[in-house]
């Protein structure tokens, strides 16, 4: 029986002395969790394969779109490709890398690098636009 990933956090006991409530997962989820410590509730193989199929389908559409150059406004193609890549990225990150099920901390750490890189290199590139436009 596969179990949908939820936002349950089975936290490792924290070190704070002040009586911190350790969040206990509901009984049914506990049955699903393997003996290894700290393992979160994960999707099952069926989910993974499903997502794999979605990824392939999106890729097929992307490839098809790339052949539409000339017939369709290229900005539209670029927009579609950008969105498609983002969706694939989101799917792999959230489900295969378990970002959805794991501690939000990981998500934040990863986003710092991702967002930071985009902003910083983006700014650098715009300075070239300025000189190019002159």
């Amino acid at each position, binding site marked *: 029986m596969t179990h949908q990933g939820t936002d349950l956090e089975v936290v490792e006991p924290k*070190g*704070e*002395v*002040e009586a911190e409530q350790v969040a206990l997962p509901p009984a049914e989820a506990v049955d699903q969790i393997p003996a290894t410590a700290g393992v979160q509730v994960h999707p099952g193989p069926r989910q993974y394969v499903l997502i794999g199929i979605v990824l392939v389908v999106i890729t097929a559409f992307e490839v098809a779109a790339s052949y539409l150059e000339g017939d369709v406004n290229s900005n539209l193609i670029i927009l579609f490709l950008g969105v498609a890549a983002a969706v694939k990225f989101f799917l792999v990150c959230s489900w295969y890398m378990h970002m959805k099920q794991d501690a939000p901390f990981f998500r934040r750490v990863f986003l*710092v*690098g991702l967002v*930071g890189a985009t902003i*910083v*290199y983006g*700014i*650098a590139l*715009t*300075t*070239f636009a*300025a*000189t190019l436009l*002159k």
Partner: protein
Amino acid sequence: MTTVEDAHALVLAPERRIRILERPRRTTGVWSWFTTVDHKKIGILYGSTAILFFMAGGIEALFIRLQLARPNGTVLSAARYNEFFTMHGTTMVFLLGMPIAAAIGNYFVPLMIGARDVAFPRLNMLGYWIFLFGGLFLYSSFFLGGAPDGGWFGYAPLTSTPLSQGFLPGRGPDFWAVGLIMLGIGSVATAVNFLVTILNMRAPGMTMMRLPVFVWMMLVVAFLTLFAMPSVTAALIQVFMDRNFHTNFFNAAAGGDPLMYQHLFWIFGHPEVYILILPGMGIVSEILPVFSRKPLFGYAIVVFSGIAIGFLGWGVWAHHMFASGLGPVAVSAFSLSTMLIAIPTGVKIFNWLGTVWGGQVRLATPMLFALGFIAQFTIGGLSGVMHSIVPSDTQQTDTYFVVAHFHYVLFGGLVFAVFGGLHYWHPKIFGRMLNERIGKTTFWLMVIGFNLTFFPMHFLGFEGQPRRTYTYPKGMGWDTLNLLSTIGAFIIAVSVLTYLVNVIYTTKRGPIASRDPWDARTLEWSTPSPPPEYNFLHTPIVTHRDEWWHRKYTEDDEGRLVRLPAGAAVAMDEPADEPDADAHGIHMPSPSYWPMVFALALPTLGYGFVFKNWWILAAGATLGLFAISALAIEPPTEPEPEPAQRELVAATGEVH
């Protein structure tokens, strides 16, 4: 163990079969220094190596000053001069600045947070070996065809044009690019280690807002390092590729743009200067409260300012490029962001002043250095604000005014803070007090020497002396100030010598240090001097900021300090004759050869790349692959020896 398991073990863990590569067990003795994973030993290794490189960089500086003491100097040829100022900068930034923070951080962050070690002890050791080998690799260039000579910033296309087109003949730039990539790997490993340690391994009750400021600064520095190094690594790879494989990254004839190098470099380079200074600010934030007998003024603001500096530091990099033709829009934006970053910096200065104000000030050596930091860093910060104004900077850039600015913040700031920290923590690390009289001599000589060397450079810069040039003609009016500057440099050298004398002299003759000779505030002072391998017999439970202080003192109704009875102050006492971790059931991570062996693979690969030798490359790759696998496979802690063995271990320090 069954026979099948034995067979598997032999096949898949070849290191077990070879006696030489048996896992080391000693934690004492000379060889243990090569195999240790103890953060304290690693800290001492980082520190002593960094100080050695500091002296190398200092000698390079002395030669530079000798060359510039008179017009038309003949001490160094132009080519030699380029090597010396490049290596001086590279050494001071990468082989002193970053490692000395790693040294103090390594030794004290676990102690300050109440942990027994860092999150990844062998990765920690790996970081040190990469630092040592990277530094040696860089310096080997002097003997292998010439040292790097394109400046510590290595601008393309000067460094990136292929050898055949010969702007910089020789392998210097290759050594530089490859060496820095190597060092960068070590830095990132160490950054990850500090981040995970500080986030995950604090003692119970040690919330983030109870952390010593030094730990907070190391946290911010680790984030900065983690995200800055990749940018410069990319730039260095591109330079190396252009130079050796005729790629076109910075080849204008092909459409390449050297400005992109500057962006990639300074996107690293500016966070780098905050990586350099923030540990110094952390050290000062520890020293001032202790020697004013007052808590840090505005702890939360100091912490948040440090975070703000780390964050804003990502938005100012192009202020190193004001004269490069970015255009008025970009330049104005970066000018504004640069001015903004002066705010949190200034806030910290006021908080430090507020700490000292009204305190019971003791002008011991560490305090003198900390106060020197405040004054001199402020001067450097002010000249920095002058640089943030674009029209001013356009005149100041590439002159000695810039040299004055960054030496005031990095030497007058960081180095003074480091010397303060070294004098402050020496008793804890080595169990002996340094000599106060020599210490004060070191300080005063350094203050005089430093200011004599670098203050004149403000004037020289305004009078037009360009930087990065090996000599200057007579009649420019620069002679006197240059001579004074050179004299100052030699005074600095003398002051550093006094420090070394101090250290050596007190090794045997210094007074034995108690656990808390300064009546300090943070947890590292609760341990014996030096601390045992396991740091704390019992992991402390923290209930206050400045936890150690609150175990010693409370306040009466009138707010006066009242010393608590000795019993409450003594934390986790361990009898002097039982320092052995095992006797207390504490399992520390085991020593290991593999960090050193893996680190050896990197310069091997490095030489392979620089000399384009496939055999050396193959050897390096094989060694690296083998070593990293072995490192990953071995358990962090070997299983305990038998009880009988254990006694033998305790008695002799090695397994029989």
